């Protein structure tokens, strides 16, 4: 690979942008943020083109000594598993800026710099090749998220922000303990070295698994540590919800793939059944609770719990279809839930209500909006030909190979999923226009349609040609599953 440190560049470019914003002023903040995110997206393009899909190894690798005393290096690199997440992060960040364009009037300077710091944390986390760097970015991520929720959120933002903070910090602490334990016994934190090095003894693995998985499970979130999510999602500003759903939750799933599966294989076997059971509970229980929601954002938040249940289910099937499906599902969920939160945010800017009962009959007043919402709801419901279908199909196929009843329950979760989405659409879009909405300009403007356009494209592309992601995954997933 060339000497050009592409991963470091795209990781820290947003941070530089954040610094520039803080040094300039409130007015140009959104423009600087837009330029920075677009530039990051543009600079990341060579990654996808030059990536060698036939290799499962880390590519574009960078390595520099960092803290010699703990033999910690600054190591960056991507494989087929991390690349799609980086793509998703840089795309969603552009859209977040676009979606906040008029919605954020208060302290835009601080808002956009927080957003950019978050972008650095996201890219860095997915590009890190050792656990220490991974942990650093993991922790950095919490700060801008906490601020985004706590400062620019809805009425109960303070409560939601602290709930988010407490849950994630509890997880982080356990991860730190695990990290120290791992360093203490192996003397390295490099993912590659940990994977190929001598196996840890099973008992230690079990303890480490508990520590790491607790941290990851909070982020995913897995049942029963999911209750921070509805509050955080609901209270966060649109961009915050998109980042939360789109990327932050994926950090948990990514952590399981990067740390738990390759480094702690015996512990994974040991905890397999409880993890599968918790996944299924998340799928069915999450979907069922979603049915009862009366707040649009809370409804989408609960649906995330169900959809992320598919991710952990796929991961713990430990077979190709399941794991590839899980990664695809994470990307798909980022796209779809991101799109749904953007849709909700756009209409909220006009109506200032999140109660489903305050809506109704949008289809005549806002046909374009209704059509796009329908498309994303269908995608979320796993409609075949759209993106989520492929991931769910692979996961359930993988689950059937493990235990047929697992797959059957997951299919039931899909069934519930279509029901709550249909009901949401029915209550928001169909029927006569809600009298409370009369006189409002509800239809989307050009900026908003352009904001959603990339996601429409991705929903169709990944549904009709999933190979566009699966092609990247294949070699790395094979590595992951057979390298054990």
């Amino acid at each position: 690979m060339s000497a050009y440190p592409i991963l470091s560049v795209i990781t820290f470019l947003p941070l530089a942008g954040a610094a520039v914003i803080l040094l300039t002023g409130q007015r140009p903040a959104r423009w600087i943020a837009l330029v920075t995110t677009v530039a990051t997206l543009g600079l990341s393009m060579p990654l996808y083109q030059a990536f060698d899909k036939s290799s499962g190894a880390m590519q574009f690798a960078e390595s520099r000594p960092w803290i010699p005393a703990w033999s910690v290096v600054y190591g960056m690199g991507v494989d087929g598993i991390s690349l799609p997440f980086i793509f998703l992060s840089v795309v969603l960040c552009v859209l977040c800026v676009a979606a906040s364009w008029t919605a954020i009037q208060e302290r835009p300077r601080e808002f956009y710099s927080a957003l950019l710091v978050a972008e650095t944390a996201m890219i860095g986390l997915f590009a890190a090749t050792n656990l220490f760097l991974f942990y650093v970015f993991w922790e950095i991520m919490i700060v801008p998220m906490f601020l985004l929720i706590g400062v620019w959120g809805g009425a109960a933002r303070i409560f939601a922000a602290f709930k988010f903070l407490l849950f994630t910090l509890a997880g982080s602490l356990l991860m730190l303990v695990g990290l120290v334990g791992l360093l203490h016994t192996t003397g390295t934190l490099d993912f590659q070295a940990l994977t190929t090095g001598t196996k840890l003894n099973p008992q230690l693995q079990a303890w480490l698994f508990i520590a790491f998985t607790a941290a990851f499970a909070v982020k995913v979130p897995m049942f029963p540590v999911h209750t921070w999510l509805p509050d955080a999602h609901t209270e966060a500003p649109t961009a915050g919800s998109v980042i939360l759903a789109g990327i932050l939750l994926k950090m948990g799933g990514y952590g399981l793939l990067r740390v738990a599966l390759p480094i702690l294989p015996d512990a994974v076997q040991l905890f397999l059944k409880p993890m599968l059971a918790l996944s299924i509970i998340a799928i069915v229980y999450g979907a069922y609770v979603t049915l009862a929601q009366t707040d649009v954002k809370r409804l989408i938040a609960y649906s995330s719990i169900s959809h992320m249940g598919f991710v952990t289910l796929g991961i713990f099937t430990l077979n190709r279809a399941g794991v590839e499906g899980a990664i695809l599902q994470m990307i798909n969920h980022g796209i779809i839930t991101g799109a749904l939160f953007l849709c909700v945010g756009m209409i909220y800017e006009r109506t200032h209500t999140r109660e489903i009962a305050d809506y109704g009959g949008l289809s005549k007043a806002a046909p374009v909006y209704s059509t796009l919402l329908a498309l994303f709801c269908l995608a979320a419901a796993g409609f075949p030909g759209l993106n989520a279908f492929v991931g769910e199909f692979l996961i359930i196929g993988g689950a059937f190979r493990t235990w047929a009843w697992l797959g059957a329950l997951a299919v039931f979760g899909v069934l519930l999923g279509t029901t709550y989405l249909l009901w949401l659409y029915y209550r928001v879009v169909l029927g006569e226009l809600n009298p409370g909405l009369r006189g409002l300009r509800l239809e989307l403007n050009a900026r908003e349609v352009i904001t959603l356009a990339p996601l429409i494209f991705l929903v169709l592309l990944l549904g009709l040609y999933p190979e566009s992601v699966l092609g990247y995954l294949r070699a790395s997933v094979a590595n992951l599953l057979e390298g054990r």
Partner: protein
Amino acid sequence: MHHLWLIPALPLAGFLVNGLFGRRLPKAIINAVAVGSVLLSFLWVLQVLNGLMPLETLYVERYATWIASGSLDIPYELAIDRLSAVMLLVVTGVGLLIHIYATGYMSHEDGYYRFFAYLNLFMFFMLTLVLANNYLLLFVGWEGVGLCSYLLIGFYYLKNSATTAGNKAFIVNRIGDFGFALAIFLIFIQFGTLDFPAVFSAAQPLPAESTAGILTAICLLLMVGAAGKSAQVPLYVWLPDAMEGPTPVSALIHAATMVTAGVYMVARSSALYLKAPLAMDVVALIGLLTAVLAATIGMTQFDIKKVFAYSTVSQLGYMFLALGVGAFSAGIFHVVTHAFFKALLFLGAGSVIHALEGEQDLRHMGGLRKKIPITFLTLACAWVAIAGVPPFSGFHSKDEILLAAHHHAPWMYWIGVVTAGITAFYVSRAMFLCFFGKYRGHHHPHESPVSMWGPLAVLALLSLGGGYTHIPQFLAPVFPLAEGAHDFTLVAISVAAGLTGIGLAWFLYIAKPGLADSIASNLGGLYKLVYNKYFVDELYFATIINPAIAGSRTVLWKFLDAGLIDGTVNGAGHMAQWVGAKCRRLQSGNIRTYATWVVLGAVLLIFTIGGVR
């Protein structure tokens, strides 16, 4: 290459044009795009068949990989054999006629472009369903037609009953899809592939299961899917409500094509069903039960579209009876003839409703045969066809089914015959109430335009002569011909049952008007039970839907999620607060108190360390 993909792609193009730009297009262009795309699709089917005849084996075209992961490889692959050829002709042919009809019927409606965009999209998915060469691609079409059905049932989305009916259709169908999806996964686990030829040839050498095994499970689950889509017991409840949609939709989707997708799918999977005789029996029983149940309800309804809707459910039951007794080609034969006469019945009913400015209640009709004679004449053709009067189309296909049923189990034949009588009765009743006697309404009936009665006339000819299409013989390369020689007595009995039904209806509604009402009131409870559709909807609500909603709201969300889990977390928080508040008292700012604590601590420390040593 015969470019099979063009067959579904043409309507898809029509959908895209009308869907994206239709709002700004004049009606003439919308019509040209919508009808033209289906016409071209129909012509392309003919072109393909012309090139491929005699088509004795499956012709496959592979375009690209869709999903590949590990050993799983699902391609974009379309295929055509004689079974799909029949379906293609019905779907594009009848579809074309209904599109033309709709240009007249919908001309005054709001959202004209939207209607035709949905209709074209439906054609795309339906044709994908028929052409798919693997279960997953078929599932794409399957879900797609369901979506279009939902959109079109709820086309009048300002009307609450329409959107509710759409939701009901969607949810009931999802229950069916649940079964279908499970079946697909089981097939994949069992055979390692979802390709039709590969699955069926792998099933070929397997022995027929005498007790319930994996194949029986697969076939039963497929039947659950079919029961949802094709409105069979216990999932038939959505179809009558689906009549909220515009009448051309009822004709195209809810009579001629989509609802027969379940029949097609089961017939397509015949290689699996033949190895699972138990599942075949279940299919036959469900079909028979549905046929009887729906026919009896059809006798009591007054909404002309509801009568025909229950008739559709009942006729679909016949088709499943055929499949269940192993007469697959007879089942498909009935799909074809039913598509002709039932599309005609609905379009004719639409013409009546159009003439009466929206009136659908048979009690407010009557004597219309002189006012809208073309509609009457064409509907009369459908009437004799469905009543099983020889030599018209329904007679031929129903006859095949009943003979096969008799060969399988005579009692099934007898129930089928009674149902045939009931069928003839309720259609005749509707015809008599609508066209004979005195006009009981207050509108000024007017005949429909040629764009509407033209398709009616074509369908009328097909309903009369469609029995001579020799579908079972044509399908011989796909399905073995049904056993059971033609038995003149059995045929005569079923024809007699049909004629009795017609005669009885004539007696009750023409000869002795008023007698029907007094019979109904004498029957009292029984009549009410049937008239209210055996209270099945109410039963479902009380036992499944309401408890499910209550459970979601009170048990899971409020109690478990917000109460128990969050309660535990908040409890931990409160505990920390409490401890913090107590400890705060220690920080009193009083130096002497601090000093006391320090001394106490030091003493404690010394004693502990000393104790350890």
